[in-house]
C-alpha cells in the first residue's frame, strides 16, 4: 500500500479531504467512478476496498 496522507489521497483523486474522512468513517458512500479511481490508485480491485452489505433484493 502507498503511504499517503488524507490530503494527498484527496488531491490525487480530485476530492476534498472531508470526503476521504467521510468515506473512511462509513458516512459517505462514494460513486462508482470515485470507487474505481481509488482502486486504480492503489492497484487493487474495487471489492478489495469497498464491500456492500445491503440486501440483495434492495432497489
Amino acid at each position, binding site marked *: 500500500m502507498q503511504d499517503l496522507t488524507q490530503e494527498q489521497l484527496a488531491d490525487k483523486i480530485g*476530492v476534498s479531504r472531508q*470526503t476521504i474522512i467521510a468515506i473512511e468513517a462509513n458516512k459517505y458512500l*462514494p460513486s462508482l467512478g470515485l470507487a474505481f479511481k481509488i482502486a486504480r490508485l492503489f492497484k487493487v480491485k474495487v471489492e478489495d476496498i469497498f464491500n456492500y452489505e445491503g440486501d440483495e433484493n434492495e432497489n
Partner: protein
Amino acid sequence: MIVMDRKKYKQLRVIVTLFVGAIVALAVVRDSYLLAAAGVLTGMVFMVLMRSKAKIRTDEREATIQEKAARMTYAIFAPTIGIAAFLLLLPSKGGFSVFSKGEWLFIESLGMVFAYLTLFLIVIYAISYHFFNRKFGGGGNEE
C-alpha cells in the same frame, strides 16, 4: 486553463465580494452612482471570466449535499408557501367581505403573490426535472 477546487473558488468569490462591497461603500460616501456601477460590473465580469477560464473541480460529496439540501428546501418551502397562500386567500374568497377592503386588502394581495410564487416554484421544478430526466437518458427514445 486554471484548475481550482470549489474551496479556492469560494475564497476568491469572498475576496471579490469584499472588493465590490468596498467600492460600493466608497461610491455611497462620494455619492457617485457611476463608481458603484463600475465596481459591481467589474466584479461580475471578473467572476464570469473566472468561471469560464478556470476549471472548477466540484467534490462529489459536496454535490450530493447540495442535492439533498435543495430537495429538502423544495419539500419544505413549496407546501409552506402554498398553504400560506391558501390561508391568506381564504378570508376574502370565503365571503368575509371585511377582508376584501380597506386595511385588510393587503392580505388578499399577499395571498395572490404567494400563490403565484408557488406556481412559479412548481413550474421551475417541472422544467428542471424534465431537463435532467432527458439529460440522464430518461427521454424514452434510446434503445
